[in-house]
């Protein structure tokens, strides 16, 4: 499904700020995999997502998605196959545009955009139905500007937008990290529901180890631009947070001292 072969990325090469963010990384994702990704600050998790989405060019290596070599495709071209939700709730939606306008934009992801009206009456009906299932009352505020919504509402909306047209791959980069615990749980439950329902192939970065263990069918841990631990199936289900901490210390030779990682 998704094959990442020997991909490296160094930021600011040749300067004092040189930073190797991905180091000859290899990852093979099967169709229908729901992979949670954990790792310390600066491990390269976001960079991995950005490389797959095409935000920056990769230095070397190859990325195949659905059998196609997408290594050199522009971000907007890959978007046809990839749905994304970002950590920052501001990034996923256009604040000055109405909820329904944002959804209409998302409903044309990867399609040709021409001189047809930007939103059809039929779409409005569909959006109404889809918004209802979020259970946030957004279906009655479809013409409100997105800027008026809370962070959690915006993330839920972004999630809906990313999956409105079924993506071949869904990328979630700490998409609940900026939310309060209750809202985060709600958005996470919704994520689970949508991913399972559509059987989406998903990569989800999280800083919550419990979530990483309980959600999805596979877990990978990153450190210094590499995957240092990769576990799936029954073995993953049996994991405990303490196992993950041990693994981390083993692989990195460091004490796990990252206050951003949540053990709970």
């Amino acid at each position, binding site marked *: 499904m998704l094959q990442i072969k020997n991909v490296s990325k160094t930021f600011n090469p040749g300067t004092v700020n040189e930073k190797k963010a991905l180091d000859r990384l290899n990852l093979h994702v099967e169709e229908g995999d729901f992979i949670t990704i954990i790792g310390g600050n600066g491990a390269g998790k976001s960079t991995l997502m950005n490389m797959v989405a095409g935000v920056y060019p990769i230095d070397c290596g190859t990325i195949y998605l659905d059998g196609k070599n997408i290594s050199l495709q522009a971000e907007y071209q890959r978007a046809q196959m990839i749905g994304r939700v970002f950590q920052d709730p501001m990034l*996923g939606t*256009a604040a000055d*545009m109405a909820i329904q306008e944002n959804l209409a*934009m998302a409903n044309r992801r990867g399609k040709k*955009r021409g*001189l047809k009206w930007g*939103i059809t009456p039929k779409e409005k009906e569909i959006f109404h139905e889809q918004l209802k299932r979020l259970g946030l009352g957004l279906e009655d505020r479809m013409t409100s500007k997105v800027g008026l919504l809370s962070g959690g509402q915006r993330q839920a909306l972004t999630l809906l*937008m990313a999956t409105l047209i079924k993506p071949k791959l869904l990328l979630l980069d700490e998409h609940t990290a900026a939310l309060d615990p209750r809202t985060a749980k709600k958005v996470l439950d919704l994520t689970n529901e949508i991913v399972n329902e559509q059987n989406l192939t998903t990569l989800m970065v999280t800083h919550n180890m419990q979530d990483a263990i309980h959600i999805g069918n596979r877990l990978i841990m990153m450190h210094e631009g590499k995957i240092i631990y990769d576990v799936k199936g029954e073995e993953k289900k049996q994991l405990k947070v303490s196992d993950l901490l041990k693994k981390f210390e083993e692989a990195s030779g460091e004490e796990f001292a990252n206050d951003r990682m949540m053990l709970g």
Partner: protein
Amino acid sequence: MGIVLAMQGALSQGILWGLMALGVYITFRLLDIADLTVDGSFATGGAVCAVCLVNGVNPILALILSTIAGFIAGWITGVLHTKCQIPAILAGILTQIGLYSINLRIMGRSNTPLLQYDNVFSQLEELTGLSSNWVVLIIGLIVTILVIVALYWYFGTEIGSSIRATGNNEQMVRALGVNTNVTKTLGLMISNGLIALSGALVTQQQGYADVRMGIGAIVIGLASIVIGEVIFGHKGAFGTRLTSIVVGSVIYRIIVAVVLQMGLNTDDLKLLTAILVAIALTVPIVMNKQKQLSMYKKLTGKEK
């Protein structure tokens, strides 16, 4: 009587230049780009129109050709900004400076008088027998309404929506599969097309084109936008906002007329306009700070 005439003149000037302000609005507010091509493309519209009229081209066709010249000017800035990744402000300046030479080349001299040639205004004047002020007003209004309707339609389409979204959140627009280089370039083209159309209409109305006619146009455009926003707010529906800019442009001309009547000379106007824009752009910031401060005082006071 003098003041009435001056006001009527201000009204028609405001409407003709209002088209230019609409163009500036597309880049400044919708795309969130400060495009300085304006001063050049306005004169390009004038220059192309002048050459057309001198060579016996139908005045309406001359307006269309001028608009196309503006599209091209916007396209150049767009390519410089997106493909060559030159910051938008600099890309605009480069095009603007380049256009100065091009405009001179188009006209072959720095000023082309056109009084002996037919134009859209004189034609309607002959047809209807109305006074020239009325004719300018009527044509200006018709063109403005057509443009506002066209913009309203275009920015509601799929592609138009993605242009608006690009100014709002570029990252999201790319993540939704839109090439933002294309949307930015399209926005710049439409903007400069309108600006050139405005330059062409002004040229026909004043009876000459001058290579320097666009100097300071950007600031006049900004003044019209901020005056419109101060009066109507900037949260209204799209159609209202477009209309408010034209109204802003008219009010700007009225202010100018009043100031001139009070004895200020035209050379001081540019400074006055610059100060006006600076103040109008500062006011919302200061008001926000005030709000924040009073909120802080209120909430902190409560805690004691």
